[in-house]
């Protein structure tokens, strides 16, 4: 069984392809004929195997790879099977069906996939359409833990059009591709000082560099992979842990740090000898986006720009306040919804209508540019409603010019660096009971959103932090 993911533009291209090519019927018949008369004799003592190439074979995860096949029988059907292991050892894989042309070649930057995990001309489809292999653990989400080593993706060329590993046809050719989250020379420094917990990434070179504070959501822990990528683009980047990390104080399931913690993190960057002190920005996803808006409005620091992705302007979860009281995450459970399969949908907890007015951040106090990114199929945060609220408040304050709003149909909550598999759902917690949460997003549309958003984020940082 396989799931096919089709983007709107891919459908257009595919139907155009069918209309434009009068020989479509002919080569389908030819492929059928080959199947009828028996398999093409692949393994031979007299001629070398077909060849699969990729360029570049070592690249950052946000760089495109060009995959091609050569020395195939004309017009023959083949399958590309990509697989890799996550840092936790789970197997992820994707399949795509191609047909070699009249010269026995195919190219992923030129040809459409006609079946498998994605359809249409998608040069990076093999990467973003990966799913956990059957028989693996449930509720998986792919996140790189160890950013200093690459993902090793093994791409096999198989005969015919197949979509599972069962009854595996023999591998005709293969190529191995490394996907890196860190450029050569980027330094990784663990931070555990003055109460701050996180990881700092410093680009190679003398500096000084512009910098970014990098914040994730209530999944907690310490996620380094966006920071390491930003450092690979020349920004000193600080991934900050603030929840669910062993080195942080206080009871679990609560945020036990307050505004002073985030201010200190921002100042660590600003005061760093390799950072240009007036070129520090903040990027945050989900609750990290809330923090991205909170830090400038509550702590007095002055970032040069902000990038917020799918986050609320106000929420029921609170930081450690001056009285030492916090509310834990589960306190917003009254707004949790569950679908037929028992997956939790957090979205309503961040609907402006459900939030006490005092809990809203005063975004009208912002004095720096803000890019706010919306996944229109976000099921975890009410992103559209929060974006509307931000837009309205900034407009009332005469600050519309500060806002850049990007909105992606079909994209879910987890808008991350591009070309990685997205998760429509994943395991949220195992205790006290197993809970799977819905993030939303449809793979092909979400992949397109990630690609576009990342490009726009990088251009935005370039414009606001470097020129």
């Amino acid at each position, binding site marked *: 069984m396989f799931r096919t993911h089709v983007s709107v533009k891919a459908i257009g291209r595919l139907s155009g392809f069918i209309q434009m090519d009068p020989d479509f019927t002919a080569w389908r018949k030819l492929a059928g004929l080959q199947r009828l008369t028996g398999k093409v004799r692949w393994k031979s003592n007299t001629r*070398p195997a077909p060849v699969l190439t990729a360029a570049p*074979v070592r690249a950052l995860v946000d760089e495109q790879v060009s995959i091609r096949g050569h020395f195939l029988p004309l017009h023959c059907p083949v399958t590309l099977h990509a697989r890799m292991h996550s840092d936790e050892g789970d197997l992820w894989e994707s399949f795509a069906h191609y047909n070699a042309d009249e010269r026995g070649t195919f190219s992923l930057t030129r040809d459409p996939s006609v079946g498998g995990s994605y359809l249409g001309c998608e040069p990076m489809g093999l990467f973003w359409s990966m799913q956990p292999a059957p028989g693996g653990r449930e509720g998986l989400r792919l996140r790189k833990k160890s950013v200093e080593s690459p993902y090793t993706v093994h791409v096999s060329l198989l005969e015919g059009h197949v979509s599972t590993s069962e009854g595996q046809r023999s591998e005709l050719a293969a190529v191995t591709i490394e996907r890196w989250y860190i450029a050569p020379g980027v330094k990784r420094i663990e931070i555990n000082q003055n109460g701050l917990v996180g990881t700092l990434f410093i680009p190679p070179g003398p500096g*000084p560099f512009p910098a970014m504070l990098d914040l994730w959501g209530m999944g907690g822990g310490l996620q380094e992979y966006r920071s390491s990528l930003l450092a690979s683009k020349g920004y000193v980047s600080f991934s900050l842990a603030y929840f669910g990390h062993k080195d942080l104080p206080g009871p679990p399931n609560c945020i036990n740090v307050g505004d002073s913690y985030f201010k200190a993190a921002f100042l660590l960057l600003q005061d760093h000898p390799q950072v*240009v002190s007036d070129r520090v920005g903040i990027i945050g996803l989900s609750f990290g986006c809330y923090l991205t808006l909170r830090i400038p409005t509550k702590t007095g620091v002055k970032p040069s720009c902000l990038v917020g992705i799918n986050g609320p302007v106000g929420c029921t979860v609170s930081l450690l306040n001056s009285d030492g009281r916090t509310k834990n995450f589960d306190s917003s459970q009254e707004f949790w919804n569950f679908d037929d399969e028992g997956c939790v949908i957090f979205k309503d907890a961040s609907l402006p209508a459900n939030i006490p007015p005092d809990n809203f951040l005063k975004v009208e106090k912002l004095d720096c540019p803000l890019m706010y990114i919306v996944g229109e199929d976000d099921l975890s945060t009410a992103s559209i409603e929060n974006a509307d609220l931000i837009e309205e408040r900034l407009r009332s304050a005469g600050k519309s010019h500060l806002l850049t709003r990007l909105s992606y149909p079909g994209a879910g909550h987890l808008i991350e660096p591009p070309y990685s598999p997205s998760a429509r759902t994943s395991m949220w917690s195992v205790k006290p009971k197993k809970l799977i949460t819905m993030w939303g997003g449809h793979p092909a549309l979400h992949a397109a959103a990630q690609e576009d958003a990342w490009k726009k984020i990088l251009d935005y940082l370039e414009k606001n932090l470097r020129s």
Partner: protein
Amino acid sequence: MDEKHSCVTLSVQPSRGLVDEKFVILVQNSFPSSLLTIYAHHQCEDGNSWHAFAHYTSDATGAVNVSEDCSIGGTYSGVEAMGLLWSLQPVPGSKPGLRMRKKNVQAPMVVTISVYSSHLTEGFGDQVPLAGVEVERWYMAPGVQRIPVTEDGLTATLFLPSGPGPFPGLLDLWGGGGQLVEYRAALLASHGIASMALDYLTCKYTMETGKIVEQDYFEMAYKFLQKHPKVLGSRIAMLGLSLGTSVILKIAVHSQIMKLRCAVCVSGSHVQPMDGFLKEILDYFSKNSGNTHFTKDNEVVWRDLLLPIPTDLSLKVDVGKLQCPLMLVVGEDDQNWCAYESAMDMKGMMERAGNSHLLTLLSYPNAGHLIEPPYMPHARVSLFREIQSRQKLMVLWGGQTLEHSRAQEDAWRKLLVFLRKNLYSGVKSGSSSLSNL
């Protein structure tokens, strides 16, 4: 801190590439028309430091593109996309006679590339650059397997491309310095050829018995490849440099057991006693050692040891009997072997015999003896440990750096095309190219 300086960006794409891949070095956001020096630094495995630098003037947008713009001074000049690698030289104060050769092919060569303000020729360590990046140059593509081979008495390393195969095979031989030199075989495997680097002078057998190997040692190596499940036994080539050429030509013409699909011989000669094999070749050199010359700097010149090219057929391989395609690569300024003269003689022999259609001859003016994979620094002279006497000598290889580097780049590209054509022939390839080369 001058804010504008922190804006200068330097990028090298790809930042992780194979050793024979080109890169693009781009400087952006400097002052328009500013004088800049681009600087490369590498510390090799033995701890020696190498550097290269070039002087540029940024354009009206404050950019420099090393692939398009002209260096007006430094360790290279002109438009040279890869000049910062091939013009690397030992930093001032280094020991003389250094040669850069990668031992551990599983780790990349790391080069730091920086851009400095103004045109500097020294004191790079004392100045703060405007920007700097690190570049990794790999000898092995991902998925290539490195397999040490000790069975059948061999001292070798096999490199297998990624995938099920079968792949054409290749035996890779170096020259009179001996040792097991892996980097060329690793690179060839990265291009889809199952390649085995073979040590035939300092192998375990020779070190233990003191005896030079005979032809059966090479037959063992050939058979090892032939019966390997991932190697296409009917498509095995040999590639050799220097003394390796002597071995290959003898085998290509005379061996009944080793049937080569094609052969590539770099900087070598067909002159050798036809009686006997490797030991006899080495003895022949010793006998002629009186023809050794020395430069005014006391560098050893061995190119006359085999000159004049004999007319006697008992003293040279009769390449008129060759039945497989042969590529000869020679540098016309080779001071170590009379490779050019030998190539001319071989060409004549093949023309007279009517098999010259098998010959591809690449001859490079001002290139020296050590024609290696591209973009590696050229060594005109280096310290060489003579195999039999164990003496360390300063040997003159020859070649002028610019022309030698161009020759390496051109020869490598043509060598790959030659190997692919002969090892993959019979398979339709159309006009699609297999790589970025």
